Each structure stands twice: as C-alpha cells, then as structure tokens.
C-alpha cells in the first residue's frame, strides 16, 4: 500500500530542500523524504556507474542497515569503482586494502611506531591503518591469509580496533565492502563461516547487458573522472538508519521471515528436501536480523510504512546465500546456494498462501 502520490511529491520537495531535516515528522512525510534522498543518491551514483541497478540498490540497502557487503564477481566488472563512487557521493572517508598473501593484520589495523617528540623524547604511538575510514574497501579478500582475515572480525562486528590495552573506535558510520574473485581459486583462502556471517549481504556482480556495455563505451572511455558531488553525509545516513528501524512489521511477517531462516537448516522438519540433502548448516539469527532490517528499507523505498512479504522475499537471497553452508554432497553436485534459496522461497508459504 503506497502512500498517496501528493504526499510523496510534497515529501520529495521538502527532502530535497532540507536533507537532514527533522525526521520526527509524520510518517508519510519522512517516508517521502527518504525516497527522495535515495533517488538523489541513485542519480548521483548513475553518473559514475552504468547499469547494475540491482547491485547498487542492494549496496544502498546494506548501507542503510549498517551492514557489510561481500561483492563477488570476475575482474573488470566495476566492483572497486562502485565502492569508490559510493564513498564520494556519500561524502564518507574512503580506505582501501588490496589483499595479498603477505598482507599482515597490522597493515590493515595499524601498528605502534616509535615517535620522537619536540623534546627529543621517544615514545610509542599507534599509527592508524586504513581501517579507520567510514568506507573500507577490502579488495580480493580471499587472497589474504586467515590470520589477516581474522583481523577483520573484530572490526566488522565491534566497530573498534584493540591495540595493546587501547580500544580505538572506528568512525561512524563504518562499512566494509569486500570483493572476491570466484574464478581464480589458486592461492586463495576461502572465508571461514564465522566471517561470512558478518557480512549482511553477499552480492553477485553480473556481466553488463549489451546496452550497458554500449553506454560504458560512450561515457567512460575518456580520461576524465565524472564530477561526483556528495549527496549525503554520515550523520544523515545514521539518521535514516534510525528512521528505518521504526518501520512496522507484523507478527505474521516476522513469523514468515523466521520460517525462511529455519528452512535453511537441514534438521528442521519443514526444510525442503534439497536442503535436507545438500546443506550442512543453515543461516544464523543474524540472517533474520538482516532480513528484517533490509525488508524495512525496501518498504520505505516502496513508500510503505509497514513491511510486506514481498520485501522479505526480495532480500532473502542476498541475506541467505552466503550463510547456507553446503555439505559434501552439495559441493560434489555443485548446487548453487541461490537455487536452494529459490526452493525455500517456493516451499515456505507466505501469509495467506497456506
């Protein structure tokens, strides 16, 4: 049930005029403002990224639920460009780590160095690493060793770095956007399940369509970077995140989301037969949190003040695909996690379907 168009229009105008205005107004007004801000953000991103609308949309949803994103795709599809563009239009500080097997945790987090002050006294000072940015791009994360990957665990979950006896909070908002290349598996270290679960979404970068390729050829074959302007800032992102938390979700839909997560577990009686046969472990409660939060963002994007089953289904795949751990038989058959999620969506009845 969308809000009346007149309200949306008015909200868009007011949102454009005052981006960080008070979000305590009437729900229909703030929803309209949210929509208008997202539209402006998309328009600015479209200057730098051609096509991949779904991917961009999912990235923005992840940003507004303050979730980290794992982006998977072959090289050259614009993964890094997407993250760079996002940092610029969001007005956030940007850090980048290119992962290699010899990358050490200190290279990411920072390290203590000997510092000599103006009085000639020497002391240890913590030199902050690239992680101390709003937006951290971890490129080809699966090339880093498990030790270095583990260094990201605390960062992603606690949003702080512990150096010696000191806990250093990261700037808010803080997002990790990691990329990995699914083709070159030699010399890589697959991410452990614990770390995979810390990513809110796993997004797949598809090869651009023909029309997008043509547009890429026409618009980005020069040597000048697109002129991107910041549309938001960190404070507004945090405010909009808090706004999204207010979107209502009814009990039947919460049950539906929980049923979806339970259906990923092979030991559950209502799990599909393929899950029982091919899956070793299912999604965690963190997946349910992600689904609910992301569904709220989709409800806002659709101009609704309450979550619908379609919102839940829309986010199920990016939220669940990396949390379904296949067993040996599943690996042997090369079954795709997306196929399993599709079967779960088909078999778990939505409210009014049973």
């Amino acid at each position, binding site marked *: *049930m969308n*809000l009346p168009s007149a309200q949306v229009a008015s909200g868009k105008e007011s949102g454009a005029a005052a981006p960080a205005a008070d979000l305590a107004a*009437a*729900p*229909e007004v703030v929803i309209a403002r949210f929509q208008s801000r997202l539209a402006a953000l998309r328009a600015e991103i479209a200057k730098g990224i051609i096509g991949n609308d779904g991917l961009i949309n999912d990235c923005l949803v992840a940003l507004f639920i303050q979730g980290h994103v794992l982006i998977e795709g072959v090289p050259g599809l614009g993964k890094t460009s997407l993250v760079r563009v996002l940092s610029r239009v969001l007005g956030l500080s940007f850090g980048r780590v290119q992962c290699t097997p010899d990358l050490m945790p200190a290279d990411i987090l920072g390290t203590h160095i000997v510092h000599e002050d103006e009085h000639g006294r020497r002391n240890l000072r913590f030199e902050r690493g690239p992680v101390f940015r709003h937006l951290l791009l971890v490129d080809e994360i699966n090339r880093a060793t498990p030790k270095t990957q583990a260094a990201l665990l605390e960062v992603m979950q606690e949003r702080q770095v512990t150096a010696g006896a000191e806990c250093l909070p990261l700037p808010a908002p803080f997002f990790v956007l990691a990329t990995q290349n699914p083709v070159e598996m030699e010399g890589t270290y697959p991410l452990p399940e614990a770390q995979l679960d810390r990513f809110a979404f796993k997004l797949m970068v598809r090869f651009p369509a023909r029309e997008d390729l043509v547009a890429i050829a026409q618009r980005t074959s020069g040597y000048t970077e697109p002129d991107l302007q910041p549309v938001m800032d960190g404070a507004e992102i945090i405010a909009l995140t808090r706004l999204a938390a*207010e*979107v*209502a979700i*009814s*009990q*039947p*839909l919460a049950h539906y989301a929980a049923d979806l997560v339970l259906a990923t577990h092979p030991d559950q009686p209502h799990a599909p037969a393929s899950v029982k046969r091919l899956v070793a472990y299912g999604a965690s409660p963190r997946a349910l949190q992600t689904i609910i939060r992301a569904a709220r963002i989709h409800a806002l994007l*659709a101009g*609704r*003040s*309450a*979550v*619908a*089953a*379609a919102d839940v289904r829309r986010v199920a795949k990016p939220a669940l695909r990396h949390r379904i751990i296949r067993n040996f038989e599943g690996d042997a058959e090369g079954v795709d996690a997306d196929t399993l999620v599709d079967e779960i969506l088909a078999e778990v009845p*939505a*409210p*009014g*379907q*049973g």
Partner: protein
Amino acid sequence: MGATPLRAAAFAAQRRLLIGAWLRLQRAATWWILAAVALAVLVRCAGVGVPAWVAWAVGGWLLGSAIWVWRGRPSLAAALAAWDRAAGLDDALLNAWDFSQRDDAGRFARAHLDLTLAQMPAWRAELSRILPLRVPPLGLIAPLAALLLVGSGTLTPVAGGVPLDRAARERLAAQAAEVARAAERLPDAALDQAEKAKLEELRKRIREAQEKAKEEGLGRPEALRELDQLARRAEELAALLNDTQAASAALLAELERHADTAELAAALKAADLIKAATEADALAKQLDRQDLTLDEQRRLAQALERAAASGDRSPTGQAIAAANAALQANDHRAAGASFQKLGAQLARAGQRQLAGRQVGALADRLRASGGRMLAPAAPGDARTLTLSNLPPLRIPPSARAGQQPPPGGVARRAVGNPPPGGHAANIPVPGSAPAAGAAGAAGASGADGGIPVPGTGMAAAGLALASVPGGSRAGHGHSDANQAPTTARAATATSTVDAAKGNGESEQRQVAGQAHQEGSALAAEATPLALVDAEERALDADPLPAARREQVKAYFSLLRRQLEH
C-alpha cells in the same frame, strides 16, 4: 484500535473464501454426482432396486463437504492475507489487522492502520471482484437437481420394494407348496413338547408364507426376507435336534479295541445312532442269554471295565458304567438291561438326528426357493451344493501319497486314524494287521510288534493292503468314498496273548471266514471331510501366497460346511 471495520471485512473475506472452497469442491465432484443421479434414475426406471441411498449420498455429500470446508476454514488473518494477495495490496490488510490487535504499535504502524481504514470502504466495494464466487455451470446444478428429484418423489423408494410379477409369484407359490408339504412330512415322534411346539410354529409360518405368496403386490425384498426368516427358524430347530451329547473319544477308542463292542463303537463314531441302537440291543441280548459262557462274560467284563475307566459322562458312558458295575457283581442280566436302556436312548436320539437332518434340508430348500422364485430353473443352472449333488470326490494322488505309511508302519490307514508312529503303529489293534517290518521285528526279538495276528496274513506277509477288500483293520472294512460298503462281518472272539515276556498285554482279534470283509466304520461323508481337513491343514503349512491361500481355504471351508450338513 479500528478493529471493528477490519473484523467485519475479515469476516466478509472469510465467508467468500469458504463459499468459494465449497463451490470448487462441488465443481470437482460434478461428474460423480451426475453419474450417481443418472444411475439412480436408471435403476428407478428399470425397477430393479431401491435407490434410497442416492438421496442420502447427495444430501450427505452437500452437508459433509460444507462441514469439511468449515472445519478447514482460514483464520481471519489468513482471510485478510488472501485478500491482500488477490488484490495486490502488499499485505496492507494483514498488517493492519495485526497492528489493530497490538497496544504497542508505533507511529508507523498507526499511520498504516489509519491509511488502511481510510481506504477500507473502497476496498470493501471491490471485494466481490477481488474474491469472486464463480458458480460453476454444473457444480451447483447437479446437487440441486438431485435434491429436486428426491424432493419431488421421483427417486423416492417404493415401499416393500419392486412387486413380484405374476410368473415369479407362481413360482414362489409352487415352491412354498412344496416346502409346506415337506414340512408336514417331518417326523416328530422323538421330539419333546417344546420341540414339537417349535416345529408346529414353523409349519404354521410356512403355511402363512404359502398363502402370502399368492397375494398380488408382494415385493421381492419382502418375499426374500420372509424366506430367510423361515430358513433361520428351521436352522435353529435343526441345531436343537442335532444337539446330542456324543461319547468321548477315549470311550470310543476303548470300545473299539474289543470285539464285542467294536461295532457299537464304530456306529457311535460314525454318528449313526440308529445302527448304534441296534448294536446296543444286540449287546443287551448277548448279555441276557441264558447260555452266556463264562468266557464270554469275562471278556465282556474286561472290555466294559476298561471302557468305564474312561470316565465318560455321556448317556453311553453312563450305561456302560452301569453295565460294568452289574457285570462286576456277576449280574449279566442287569448289564443287559443297561444296554437295552442305552439302545432305547440311542434309538430316540437317532430319530431326533434324522428329524434334525430333514429340518436342515428344509432350511436349504427355503433358501433355494428365493433363487428359484426370481429365475426359473433351467438346465445347467447353478444348484445349491448339497451332499446329494456333490460330484464324486476323487482323492488326489498327493493326498493318497500323504496317507502312505512310513516303512514299517501300517500299509494303509483310514483317514482320521492315529498317525504313523502313534498308538496304532506300535500297539497291535485287535484284528489289525501288524506291519511287515514290525512283524519281522517281532519274529526276531518279540519285543515291539507282537506276534502275527491270525486273519492278517497278507499284511504280515508284507503285501500292500491297498487292494485288499476290507481294508487294513479286521472288523473295519474300507470302501472308497461314495461307493457301496463291503458287507460287514462280526468279529467272533478276543483273545489275550503274551507278545513278549515282561512286555505287557497284546491283543488280537479273530475273524471267522474270509478276512476283511466288514463294512466301513466311517460314514460316507467322513472320508471327504477328513480330506478337506487335511487340505486345510496343508494350506497352512504350504508356502502359498496369502491371498491365494485365503481363497482356497474359503473354498474348502464352504465345501466342509456343505458336507457336514
């Protein structure tokens, strides 16, 4: 918080979903209902039966399907969710319903609820379009047509069923007359007063049925029901008349061992009570003779003492016990009187038995009358299976083989006798033929088989007795099933011999003249009955498929019941 309009809308949606589900069920069952109605009309037109079940089936289906749909009705929330899905409302109604039930709904939930309630009138107006009740063309017509036919009386059952036509009435009257004549001829001399009253009541009911058979408008079910009731009464009376207390197997076995009482035992065993009465009378005369020798008296006393030791409390057992007591007191005349009394009792029981058999046959005729009433008898028609029309039973080679004794046993035994290796194989029965092996062993060691018994030379010589007239036991002739029995000859003496030192008594039976020319100790139907029993037992042991075994057993059970009657 706005629950009332939502509740009303939810009830409306639930109602439409229920009716829709019920209509879909009707549509799914349309062809079944049409077929049932058409069948009912055809049956009614043909006048063959009573289609009352059709009315009940259609009514039951309509009501049952409604109850079934009601039991599986969606909840109010589910009804609203279905409405959401059908109208593409993105769960607006479901969410609003849930938020209206909560007290802690936030501002977004309240906004959603307000907006939903504001749009509810417009959505309610479109409910019939969103959840349409598409009445299937035949889905309702079929049950309504069935109800209409039932209501108009077209399918109303005819009271008493379809009336008999004239030819059937004539056949029924003829059958009833025959049965009535047979009932009048039933002997009742041996019946007590209560039994006579029952027989008279049966005759009266048969006469009434005979009169009723001539009436016009008599329905087939009514006629068949009447015949069935009469047949049941006749069967009850037959069971009453056949209920005689039989002598125990131990008593019969003991009587059978002695020459003087063997004939009585054979008749009792064959349930031939008339013959048993004759034998009892013969024994009474034998004991009542003035010139009864001491040897005969001692022989009889020994036989009766052993028989009385069986403790049988049947009339036969009591008579033998009394005769034994008299003989032990050296009063052979009193013993004779006991046997005379037994003869009278057996004669009366025999007459009751005969009457019971005739009443049983009457019951069979009553049951057969129903079939003959509906269809005239024609050559080749199926007949009721009775003893009189049973084909001669051929004993299959396997069954014969199953009766062959083991090496060293009796060459051929009557069916139902103790198995090889049992009593008959080890202890020489008076007058019976010891087996060749046993005889040889006895000749060598004198321990097991006893000495060769006079009159059993052929068996003792090791020849197969299958072709010997009279069978394997002296005094107990053999005849094939349904063949004329060989002429019975009385055994003349029982003597006691020592088979071997320290090995107890052995007995032999002497038969004057040609050996083994006696009549069969078994009734004609006993052999096929025993064969059927053997077949049934074999079926339990053989690895036949369960379904096939039940089928064959059912056949043999039916055959045995027919034979027993």
